[in-house]
Each structure stands twice: as C-alpha cells, then as structure tokens.
C-alpha cells in the first residue's frame, strides 16, 4: 500500500467516526471534552455553531453518531453523545451575549425562506449575521416547523423550542407566520435575490383500505393528528387505539395517545419487529409505557358497525426469502385477526407535496415528482431557488435539515456575491500535538471502564398523566461528567513519523487493542490478513507508513484504536505523537459566533 496521506482532511476526519457520521459534522469529542471540564457554555456554543439546535437535538436527534461511536465496538454500548449535548444545553447558563447580531447596515440582498422549520432556520442563522434581509414564511402560527408540530411535548418541551428558535429569530428578520405560500411564480415575481424552500414533507401517507372513509372522525393521519395535539386542537382520544406503522412518528403517536386517554394502545407493523424504522430507544420507551408492538400483521379492512369504527382486520403474514433473494411477506393462511378499537392512527410514512410550485416556474421535477436538487449545493434547476430538509430529498431528520441548511446558506451567499456556487469553501482543519511533558497530555487519556449511564426518567404514572411532562429528566452534572469520561477522544490522533522510528516494538507491545503491526508491505487485502489482530472491517482505514529502516512498514488498523496514547507514551523517539484534529465545517457567516 502507498503511505497514508494524512494531509488529506478526510483521513483523520473518518477516524473521528461520530463527527464523520454526523450530517452537520459536529466536532463531538471536542464538545464532550468541554463538558468534561465543565465548560458547558463553550460546549453549547460549539454545538450551536455546527448544529444550531443543541437543546432540541440533545433530546430528539436520530443520533447517527452513536452507532458509529468507536466505544460500541469494544464495549456493549456507545457513548451517550446525544444526551451529553443536552447536558451542555441544560447547564450552559446565559449565552445570549455570545450570539452574533445582524450588522446595523444590511448588505442589500433579500432572501425568502419558505417554511420555518430547522432547514430554513439554519439558513437564517447563517445568513442573518452577514446582513441579509430575510423574510421567513410559514403557514403555522409559530416558527419551528415539524419540531413544533410533530414532536410531542413530553419529548421536547415548548420552552426549549421557544428558546432555540428565538435565538435565531432575534438575529433580526421579517416573519410572516400564518401565511401559506400558494404560488412559486408569485414569490419569484417579488424579485428576491434567492429563495430557500424548507417546507418539509407535510403530507402523511394514507392507507386506502375498505372502510377507510366510513368513519373518518375515528381514523387519523399520524402527523396531522400530532400537529393538532401540539397546537391544542385535540385533547383526547378513545380508550382503545391502534397505531399502524413502525417509524418514529408511530412511536410518537402511540405515546401521545397513551397520555390523552388511550388505555389500551397497540402498535401494529406489517413486517418484523427488527425491521421497524423507529430508533431502538424509541421502541423501548414505548414498550416501557405499556404499549405492545405486534408484528407481521397486514391491515386489510376497517370494520364498522352503525357508522362507527369497530376495529381493524389484519392478515397474518410471515417473511420469506424468494428465489430472487428478496425478502417478501406471504400470508400464513391462519385466520385473519380482528382487533377492536375506538381510534386508528395511520403513521405509515410521509410524502412531499408541492402543489404550490407551478411546473413552469423553472424548477424541474423528477419522475417521483420531487424537485431536481444538487446534493452538494442544494440548488434547484432555477439558479435562485434552493431546497433543503425534507423538502429536498424526502423525509429524513432534523440534523440532515441542518446540514442542508448550512450548504444552502453557503450557496446563497456565494450566489449573492456573484461567485460560483459549485465551488465550495474548504473546512477549517487544525492538527496540534497534545504533548505537555514526557508522559503528560493535554487530554485525559485514561480510559474509563464505566458502562453507559441511563438518563433518569420521570416516574411512569406522573409521565403518563400529563402530555407536557418531559419523560427524560436529563443527566445531572455528576452522571453527565461520568458519561463524558467514556469518550475515547478519537479526535486526538495517533500521528506516526517513520524517520524517527527505531522499530523497538514498544508500541505494538503496549497497545491494548493490538492495532499496530510492523511487517512487510503488501496489497491491502494481503496486509489485512497479516496484522497482529484481525482487521476485517474494510470501511475502517489502515494507516500505513513509508518504508522503515528494516524495509518493513508500520500498519495501524484504525478500527479499534482507543486513542489512549500509550503507543506515544512508550515510544522512545517521539515517532508516535498524539495530535488533536479539529475540523470545523465551513459556514456562510464567518462571524457566526463568539466561541
């Protein structure tokens, strides 16, 4: 193999798996270290710069970082990265003086933001400090989008939304809430310098089964029902409730129903329990609240009697692998199952809908009737119109919306400056030695043996009695600090300088996870077979040096490195050094915040 080029920012970025997995590339280990040193405000600001909604995401993020966390590979569970973000938000104190402000004099550019959800708010956050004249539209009476309308208050209290959405609105922008946009052409005619569409995926998918329309008052579309609950239009539901669907919306529906009078709430999914789209922790929490999840049941019919809903008829199925290797559901032949109920919540997916965008507006749509959007620049085929969040590529999650918002803001900024939108600014990268003394590092390299701490929950009875009572109470400081210690500091990189190496084997001998091997060079597949310990995971890089004195090379499997720095501590010549790799994504506004 050729020597690894560590000057390529992607190389060490990939080693920080959590940051690499995060769509917004939040510098996770860096903020966890700040939490560990009780610098909550700093940890919050670092998050705020990168993911805009630390308090909201610290409760609701889909956490792509956690399955990626290296700790999960050498131990049972990853670091509770998401809930540590909430720790930063909970203990940050007043940070308002650290937020940027819009300049007194604007730059004269006007940008319309359609939809006031996380994607648009991110664009607003990034552009407002640059002096843009922003107009934020939403059909709802308040900003927040799905954060406000779909996420139940027992998972995300209203004050947290008000606070973090408020930070952005306070930067200064015109808001037109309660005013749906009905025509893209009309909006284009208003001559904005750019338009950002972040209106989400607002349409819940329906189930067109027999009996669907007989008693419409008892059958609800999940996201619409959640919005009605959120805005206080719906305050109760029948005693027996069936929730159809296995995603996170279904979990929010069943748990909300449980709090609004549903005593006998059941989730029913077509496929297997394991195949459900909902995050594992959301499934767990639903089941802990006494909600059974039944699987392999396909809804066939809504049964009625006397104009009221009696129940849902299900066909029993099993999963089978067909001759083509694809998994499909086939009826078992057992008799159908009739489940009586008073209400049904349908949460089987969300769709995009753009009835308000005229197809002659210059924005192309593809064969799935989705706008054609450049994945890097978020630009549509109309040079002034950009998309982001669920509106761009279908339903994803908040953190993806934030990532889209950052990219769109950069594009809009470049467009308004007359620069090429396709050209992207590079990230800020910094690699600095952490050596303080012979065996002292400016990070805590002692590895904690603690298992993952559980976030304390409100007692079930109290939680179920009030739909606005937050279930998770958050880590207290003591638990938060202990959890923070579980982080390996994967951003503190093992940097190898071959010309200093005397091949004494000290690093190989001390490495607790057998990452390091000195051997003859070869092709990657061959090298992987010859390492001290198995290195099957080809998605995890091998760090290969140039030829050493004996003609061998140093090969380090990045996969299981604990970043404990013992290789560097036991290295007599400083060939190994521990260097902190900090990568900050480019943002449209350079004066974004005062870290």
């Amino acid at each position, binding site marked *: 193999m050729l020597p690894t080029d560590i000057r390529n920012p992607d190389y060490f970025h990939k080693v920080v798996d959590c940051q690499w997995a995060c769509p917004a590339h939040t510098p996770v280990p860096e903020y966890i270290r700040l939490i560990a040193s009780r610098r909550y405000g700093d940890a919050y600001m670092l998050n705020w710069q990168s993911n805009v909604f630390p308090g909201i995401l610290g409760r609701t993020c889909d956490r792509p970082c956690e399955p990626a966390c290296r700790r999960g590979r050498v131990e049972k569970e990853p670091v509770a990265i998401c809930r540590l973000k909430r720790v930063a938000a909970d203990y940050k104190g007043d940070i308002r003086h650290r937020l940027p402000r819009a300049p007194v004099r604007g730059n004269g550019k006007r940008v319309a933001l359609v939809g006031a959800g996380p994607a648009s708010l991110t664009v607003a956050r990034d552009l407002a400090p640059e002096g843009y004249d922003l107009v934020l539209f939403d059909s709802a009476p308040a900003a927040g989008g799905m954060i406000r309308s779909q996420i139940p208050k027992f998972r995300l209290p209203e004050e947290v939304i008000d606070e973090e959405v408020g930070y952005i609105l306070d930067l200064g922008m015109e808001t037109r809430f309660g005013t749906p946009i009905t025509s893209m052409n009309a909006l284009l005619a208003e001559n904005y310098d750019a338009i950002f569409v972040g209106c989400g995926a607002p349409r819940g998918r329906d189930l067109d089964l027999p009996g669907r329309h007989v008693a419409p008052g008892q059958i609800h579309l999940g996201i619409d029902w959640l919005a009605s609950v959120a805005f206080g239009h719906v305050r109760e539901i029948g005693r027996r409730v069936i929730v159809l669907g296995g995603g996170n919306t279904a979990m929010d529906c069943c748990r909300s129903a449980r709090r609004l009078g549903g005593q006998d709430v059941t989730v029913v999914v077509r496929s297997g329990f394991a195949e459900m789209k909902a995050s594992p922790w959301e499934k767990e929490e639903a089941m802990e609240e006494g909600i059974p999840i039944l699987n392999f049941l396909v809804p066939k019919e809504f049964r009625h009697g006397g104009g009221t809903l009696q129940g849902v008829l299900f066909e029993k199925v099993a999963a089978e692998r067909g001759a083509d290797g694809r998994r499909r559901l086939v009826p078992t032949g057992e008799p159908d199952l009739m489940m009586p109920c008073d209400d049904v919540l349908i949460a089987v997916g969300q769709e995009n809908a753009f009835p308000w965008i005229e197809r002659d507006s210059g924005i192309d749509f593809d064969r799935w009737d989705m706008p054609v959007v450049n994945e890097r620049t978020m630009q549509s085929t109309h040079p002034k119109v950009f998309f982001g969040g669920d509106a761009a590529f279908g339903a994803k999650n908040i953190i993806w919306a934030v990532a889209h918002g950052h990219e769109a803001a950069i594009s809009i900024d470049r467009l308004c400056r007359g620069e090429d939108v396709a050209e992207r600014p590079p990230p800020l990268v910094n690699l600095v030695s952490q050596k303080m003394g012979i065996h002292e590092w400016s990070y805590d390299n002692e590895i904690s043996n603690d298992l993952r701490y559980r976030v304390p929950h409100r007692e079930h009875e109290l939680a179920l009695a009030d739909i606005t009572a937050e279930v998770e109470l958050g880590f207290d400081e003591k638990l938060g600090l202990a959890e923070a210690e579980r982080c390996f500091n994967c951003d503190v990189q093992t940097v190898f300088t071959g010309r200093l190496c*005397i091949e*004494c*084997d*000290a690093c190989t*001998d*001390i490495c607790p996870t057998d990452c390091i091997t000195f051997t003859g060079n070869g092709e990657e597949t061959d090298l992987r077979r010859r390492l001290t310990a198995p290195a099957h995971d080809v998605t995890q890089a091998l760090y290969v040096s140039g030829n050493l004195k004996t003609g061998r090379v140093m090969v380090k499997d990045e996969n299981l490195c604990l970043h404990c720095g013992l290789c560097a501590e036991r290295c007599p010549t400083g060939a190994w050094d521990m260097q902190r790799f900090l990568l900050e994504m480019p943002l449209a506004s350079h004066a974004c915040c005062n870290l």
Partner: protein
Amino acid sequence: MTFVAKPKLSHPELPRNRLGLTRRDYEGAVSTLCAGCGHDSISAAIIRAFFELDLPPHRIAKLSGIGCSSKTPTYFLGRAHGFNSVHGRMPAVATGANLANRDLVYIGVSGDGDSASIGLGQFAHAMRRDVNMVYIVENNGVYGLTKGQFSATADVGARSKRGVTNTESSIDLAALALVLGASFVARSFSGDKAQLVPLIKAAVLHKGAAFIDCISPCVAFNNHAGSTKSYDYVREHNEAVDALDVIVGRDEISADYAPGTIETVVLHDGSILRLNKLAPDYSVHDRVAALAHIQDRERAGEIVTGLLYVGPESKDMHENLNTVATPLASLGDAELCPGSAALEELNATLR
C-alpha cells in the same frame, strides 16, 4: 514512565487459549522502564509464550535479582508467584524454590550485571546443576540503572554513549553456559519476537536448565552508533542458525519447509521442536561444534542467534538427586520427619 493503567478494553476477537484465558490475562502492571526498552519486548514475548502454552498463571514462579531486567517480572504474569531476590542471587533462590516445589514452572529473569558480574558464580551453578527452569538474561551490555557504564558483556571496542571505548574482554554467557554443561542454550534479540517467542516456549518445555541470552538494547544508554548492542547493530549482524517451530502435544503440524532443511527434536513430554536450519552444517546436538561456531562467527563480528544447543537426554536436578515425585512442600510431617526409628535404620545402612 507511564502513569495511566493499560486500558482493560481489548480487541473483541482476542483469541482465548485452552484455559479460556486471553493474552491480556498473562500481562502484569504497566512497565516503569524507559520507553522503548528492549526488556519490555522480552516481557511481551514471555506473555505470548506462556499464553500460547496454555499454562495456568498461578502455577508459574518468576524470580529475579536486581537491575532493570530484574524489575520486569512485575510487568508480566501478574497472577503468577514472584520473588525479587538479592543482587545476583536469583539462581540460588530459584534452586531452593525448585527443590521445595518441583511442580511449578520456574522462570528466572536476570541481566548482564546480575548474572555476568555479581552473580556469575550463581549462574554457573544453576547451569551445571541443571535446575529445571527458564533462565533469561536480558543483555544490554551496560549498567542502565547507574547511567550506562560498561558491563561484563560489553564487546571489546564498543563505544559508550560518552565516547569511551571498552578495552576489557567480554563474557559470552551463551558460550559460558555451553562450557558449564547447560542442557539448553539459545541466543535471541528483543527486536525479533518471531524468533524469541518459540525459543521461550521451547525453554519452558525443556526439562533442565534452559538458558536464553537475549540481547536487549538499552535505548537510554546503549543505542548509539559505536554500540554493539543497539537495535541497528544487532539487526545488521544477526546470524540465526535456525528458525524454530514448537509443536505442543495436540498442535497440528502445518509449516512447510524445503526437504533436508528440517531437524526434529522430541522433548521429554512428547512436544516437538522443528528446526528450520538456516546454517546448513550446524548441529544443534553438538556442544563442541556449537561452541566453535559461536566463537568463529563472533571473531567475524557476527552475533549468532537461534537455538544453539539442546542436550540429547537431559536430566534435571531432581533426577540427579533422586528426590521423590511429590514436591517436598506438599509432603506431610510424617513423611518429612519419619522419627528416630527410621533414622536408626538409615544410619545402620551407612555403618
């Protein structure tokens, strides 16, 4: 010196031996020796060898004297018995321990100061008595703890870190062990675990005194140009006579060698040593020829390594003394002190 403990977390696919233990279970405390010390590599090789031999750590006794090398038993086999003796007296303590309890596996770790200077007499007698033990000398040619004066194994003409040339003749412990009648003599290099680990395994399996002279560079005081015990010098002048494969009882024989280059040695417990001969005319059973070869190559400036000699049918100290099979430490009062009648009977046989 490293202040943090080695993390408990390990590779999830870390292999387990027949006792269900991983290599990590054979480790000791984190070393307090200088970073890069050859001794730490030897400790790692010892850990691997004992792990691969499936030996229960609590049936092993590790003994040492004084010096950098003699600190190392703390850094391996944390669950074994240990004895850190007076300077140079490890062989006497090991002999005594072995006499009292022949059932344990003994490993003595010593250095060139401990064995070639203050303990040279002790070393000699452990060899000639054929005490059933592994005797490793971690040989770096200098007194590291007192900042790098030449030791008795420093070669004539070697230069110290401060530029002084050694004029005194050096003691070659491997050659000396051969002369003294040791039944297993090997030399190796801390920087070559592929050679060292099988040698340690063979030494453990060998019945009788198994001596390994292991060159172990001192990174702090003897790893410069002009040193004959530096990583670079040893790598350049290393002349292995053989490469060893240790096949214990049920292990499968898998290595492939060109015909005629293999010599097989069967040990007393049925384990097999397969020697891939790198020096074609070298015989591992010929004490005199071995001595001649070592001295001949040394004159040419080369360092001969590998398994140098293994006695055909070694008898250890217990066999020579005709002791009982039960360890003396396990005998009861009645057996140890059979009373005046038995003494009378014994005395009668001597009259």
